[in-house]
C-alpha cells in the first residue's frame, strides 16, 4: 500500500517536473498576431497600443512608414462618407481621404487598416494612439481643437444642419424655422444636432416637440410614416436621403437656405506631431491643387511626362519638388492623384451620385470655399 502511494506521488512529481522543465527551457511562446497582407508588407497589430510620436520623440510619420500600414479611424454607417460595400470593404468620401494619405506616405492607397468607430469612441482612439488618423465626418470645433487634443486637417466638406419637411404641409425652400411652430421634429440621439435645433428654435421663438431615435434610418422611417413632421440633421444627410427615399420629386423640401449650424468636416490627427500633421494636410491640399490645375487620375501620367507649368511639375515630383523635404517620397502626390484621384473626382465618386451638389464645396475659383495654399 505504501509503495503504491509513493508511486502515485512520484508519477505526479514527474509530470510537474516535465512541466517545469519545459517552462524553464526558454521556449515560452507568445501568441503572435502578425498579419501578412498579400502585397508582401508586414503589419503588426500591437495589442498594447502604439506609442504616439509625442511620447517617443520621433514622428508618427516615421512610425507609419516603418509599419507599412496606416491605421485610420472611420465611420461605417454614414452613406457616401463611410460605409461598407457588398464585400465588406470600406468605401466613401472619408475613406478616400485615408487612402490618399496612405498613397502619399506609403505609396499604396490600399495599405490602410480601418477601424470602425462610434462618435463616442473616436477621440479616445486618436489620443490612445490606436489610430494614426481620424477620418470620420468630424466637425472642427474650438473645444475639440483646444481641449480634446485633435489637430484638424483642412476642412474637406462644409456642411450645415438643416431641416426637411413635407411640401404637402406648406413648406418650401424659403421656409424658416418659425414656420415649424408646433411641429414634431425628429433627429438622432446623442449628437449636437439635438442641441443645435433646440437653440435655433428658441431663438426663432417657436415651440416644438423634439423626438430622438437611435439612428437616422429610424428617424427617416418615422418621417415617412408621418410620425415626425420634420427631421433635422446635416444638410448632406438630408439631401442624400431625399434623393433616394423621396416618394415623388418635390414631396420633401429642405430649408432654411442658410443652415442653422456650421459643420466644417475634415480629418484630424493627434496634437503635437507637426511632421505627421503636415503629411496629412498636404495629402489633402495636393488633391485640391490637382483639381485647380486640372490634374486627375486619367491624365496624371501625361501631366507628369510633360508638365504644363512649374506647379504641376513640382506637385508630381519633378524638379524643385518639395515633398522630400517633408519626409515623403518625391512622387507622393503623384501616387495620391493616380491611385485615389483629385478632390473633385473623389467628391463625384461618392457624393455627387447621392445627389449632393458642390455648393460651398466648390473650388474657391468657382465661388466655393475649397482652397489650398500653393505648392511652391
Amino acid at each position, binding site marked *: 500500500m505504501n509503495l*503504491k*502511494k509513493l508511486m502515485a506521488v512520484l508519477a505526479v512529481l514527474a*509530470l510537474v517536473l516535465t*512541466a517545469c522543465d519545459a517552462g524553464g527551457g526558454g521556449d515560452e511562446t507568445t*501568441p503572435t498576431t502578425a498579419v501578412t497582407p498579400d502585397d508582401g508588407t508586414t503589419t503588426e497589430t500591437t495589442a498594447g497600443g502604439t506609442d504616439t510620436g509625442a511620447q517617443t520623440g520621433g514622428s508618427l510619420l516615421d512610425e507609419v512608414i516603418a509599419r507599412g500600414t496606416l491605421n485610420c479611424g472611420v465611420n461605417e*454607417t454614414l452613406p457616401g462618407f463611410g460605409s461598407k460595400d457588398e464585400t465588406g470593404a*470600406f468605401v466613401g468620401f472619408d475613406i478616400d481621404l485615408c487612402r490618399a494619405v496612405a498613397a502619399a506616405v506609403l505609396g499604396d492607397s490600399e495599405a490602410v487598416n480601418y477601424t470602425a468607430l462610434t462618435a463616442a469612441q473616436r477621440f479616445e482612439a486618436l489620443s490612445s494612439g490606436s489610430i494614426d488618423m481620424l477620418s470620420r465626418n468630424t466637425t472642427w470645433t474650438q473645444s475639440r481643437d483646444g481641449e480634446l487634443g485633435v489637430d484638424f486637417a483642412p476642412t474637406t466638406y462644409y456642411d450645415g444642419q438643416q431641416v426637411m419637411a413635407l411640401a404637402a404641409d406648406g413648406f418650401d425652400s424659403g421656409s424658416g424655422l418659425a414656420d415649424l411652430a408646433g411641429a414634431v421634429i425628429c433627429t438622432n440621439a446623442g449628437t449636437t444636432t439635438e442641441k443645435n435645433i433646440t437653440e435655433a428654435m428658441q431663438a426663432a421663438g417657436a415651440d416644438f416637440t423634439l423626438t430622438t431615435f437611435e*439612428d437616422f434610418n429610424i428617424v427617416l422611417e418615422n418621417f415617412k410614416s408621418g410620425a415626425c413632421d420634420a427631421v433635422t440633421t446635416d444638410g448632406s444627410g438630408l439631401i442624400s436621403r431625399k434623393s433616394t427615399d423621396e416618394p415623388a420629386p418635390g414631396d420633401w423640401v429642405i430649408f432654411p437656405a442658410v443652415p442653422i449650424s456650421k459643420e466644417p468636416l475634415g480629418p484630424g490627427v493627434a496634437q503635437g506631431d507637426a511632421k505627421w500633421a503636415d503629411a496629412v494636410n498636404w495629402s489633402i491640399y495636393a488633391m485640391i491643387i490637382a483639381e485647380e490645375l486640372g490634374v486627375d487620375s486619367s491624365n496624371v501620367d501625361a501631366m507628369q511626362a510633360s508638365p504644363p507649368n512649374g506647379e504641376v511639375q513640382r506637385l508630381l515630383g519633378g524638379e524643385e519638388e518639395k515633398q522630400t523635404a517633408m519626409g515623403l517620397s518625391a512622387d507622393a502626390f503623384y501616387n495620391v492623384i493616380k491611385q485615389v484621384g483629385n478632390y473633385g473626382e473623389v467628391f463625384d465618386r461618392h457624393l455627387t451620385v447621392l445627389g449632393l451638389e458642390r455648393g460651398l464645396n466648390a473650388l474657391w475659383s468657382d465661388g466655393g470655399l475649397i482652397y489650398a495654399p500653393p505648392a511652391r
Partner: protein
Amino acid sequence: MTEPFVNEISESEVAPDKPSAGAIRWARENLFSTFFNSVLSLLMLALIVVFVRGLLSYVFAEERLWNVIPRNMKLYWTEAYPVAEMTRTWVSLGIVLVLAGLSLAIWKVGGKTAPRQFGRTLTSIGITGLVVALLADAPSGIRVGAAAVGAVLFLAGQAVRMMAGERFTEETIHIRSVLLGILLIIGVIVWILPIETGTKTSLTIQGVLLIVSYLLGGVVLRVVSEGLARGVLVGLWLLSLPVVYLVVQRAPVTAGVPVMSVFLPSAVAFIVLGGGLLWWMSSGKAGEGGRLAAGVVVIAALGCWLVSMPMLVRFLLLALATFALAAPTFGGTGKAQKNIVIAWSVAVLITAYFMVMMQAETGLVGLQGEFIGGLNLTFLLAVSGLVISFPIGIMLALGRTSSMPIFRLLSTGYIETVRGVPLITVLFFGNLVINRFLPREVELDNIVKAIVAIALFSAAYLAENVRGGLQSIPKGQYEAAKAMGLSTVQMTVFITLPQALRSVIPAIVGQVISLFKDTSLVAIIGLADFLRVARDIVPNQPASLGSLQESLLFAMVIYWIFTFNVSRASLRLERKLGVGER
C-alpha cells in the same frame, strides 16, 4: 360493471371521405357546431384575412427594396471576411453539414409517414399559395406565379390522397426521401436564381456533402455498433467547434511554434505518465493513495497558472486533474480502465493540437480587426457559449445543492451575482477585464472574450434550471442509490443528473433560444454580428439607402427559422425521452 370499453365505430365511419366532403364536414363539426361558435369562427376568419392581407401587401409593395438582400448575402453571412478566404467559411459549413448528415443517419432521424398525411401537407401548402395569390396586393406576375404553384401543389396533394385512398393508411413514405426531394428542389432554385456561379457551385457541393455523409452514416452503422458511432459523433461535434473557429480565424501552419522541442515531448510525457497514473487510479485499488494523488494533481493544475510555464502544460495539467477526479467514478473493470486511458491519450493529443494551432500565425489577411461577422459570428457565439456554459452550469447546480457549505456558498454567490446583472454589462466587463486575469503572454481576441462572457452568463441561468431538475427528483431515488452502495459521485452521474436533465429540457431549450437571440448584444463591444449587419451596415450603404425595414424583416425571418427549428427539435427529444410522461 366492468364491461370492457369497446370502440364501436363501424368500418364505414373510419373510412376516408372524399377530400372535399371531409373538409366541409370537419368545418361543420369544429368551426360551425353552434351559433356562438360560428360567429366566433367568422370573426376570427375576418381578422385573419385582414392581417394576412396587410402583411402580404406590405411584403409585396412596390417600394420594398428586396433586391438589397441577395446583393448583400456575403455581408449577412460573414460581414467583412476577406473575399479571397471565403473558401474557409464554406469548409466550416461543410464540416457542420457532414456531421449533420452522419447524425441524421446514425440517430435514424425521421421515420416514415403515411401517403395520406403527405398528401394533406402538400394540399395545405398549395392552399397557402392560393391564399397568397388571392389576398396579396402584389404585381400580377407574382400573384399568377403563386396561384400556379399553389394550384399544382394542391392538385398534387389531392392526387396523392386519392391514390392512397383506403389502401395505404400505413406509413410507407420515408421522411428522408421527402427531405431529399426538398433538397433537390432547393438545388434547382439555386441554379435558377441570378447569383454568382461560385456561390452556386459551393452551395451544390454542400448539398452533395450532406447527402453523401448521410449515406456514409448508413454504411458506418453496418460496420460498428450504434453506441460507439453515437459516442464518437458526439465527440466530433464537440471537436468541430474549435476546428471551425480555427479554420475561419487561423491558417493550419505551425511556423514559429516549437512543435518538436516542446509540444511533442510534453504530449508524449503526459500520455505515458498520466495514462499510468489514471490506470492505477481507476483500478479501484488506489484508495487513500488515489485521493492523495488526485489532490496533488489538482493543486499542481491550479498552481501552475501562477508560475511561468507553457500554456500547453497548464491545459494538460487541468485536463489531467479533471480525469483524475473522474477516474475512481468510471473505473473498476479492466475494460473501463482501458477506455479511460484511451480517452486520456485522445484528450492530450487534441489539446496539444489546438494549442499548436492557437499559437500559430493566422496567415489571414483581415480587412480590419475581427475577421468574421454576420450570421457566422452569431452561430459561433451562440453554440460555443452554450457548449462551454453546459458543464459550468451543471457544476454550479451541483455546487448549490451540495451539502458542503463552501461549494454551496460559492455557487450561490456566483449564480445570484451573475443573474443580478444585465448581459450587456457582463459583455463590457469581460471585454475590458478578462485579459487582466490571464497570464501576461495570453491575449484573447474580442470574439473569444465575448464567448467567455456569454458562457459565464449563461451558466448561471443554466445552473438554476438544472437545480430545479435536481430538486424535482424524488428522495427515494437518492436513497435507493445509496442503498446500492454507490458513491455520491456515482449517484450523481448515473442516477440523479440524467433524470434531472431530462426533466428540464423545456427550460433549457427556452434558454438556448434566448441565448441565440441575446448574442446580438455583442454589437456594443464592436463585433459585427448578424443583427448589426442587418441594422447598421447594410441600410447605410449608398446603394441600399432606405432598406432598413427589408433588412430587419430578413433578420427576423432568419432568427425565426433557427429558433423555430430548435424548439421543434426539442419537442421531438421530449417525446423520445418521455418528458412529462414518466
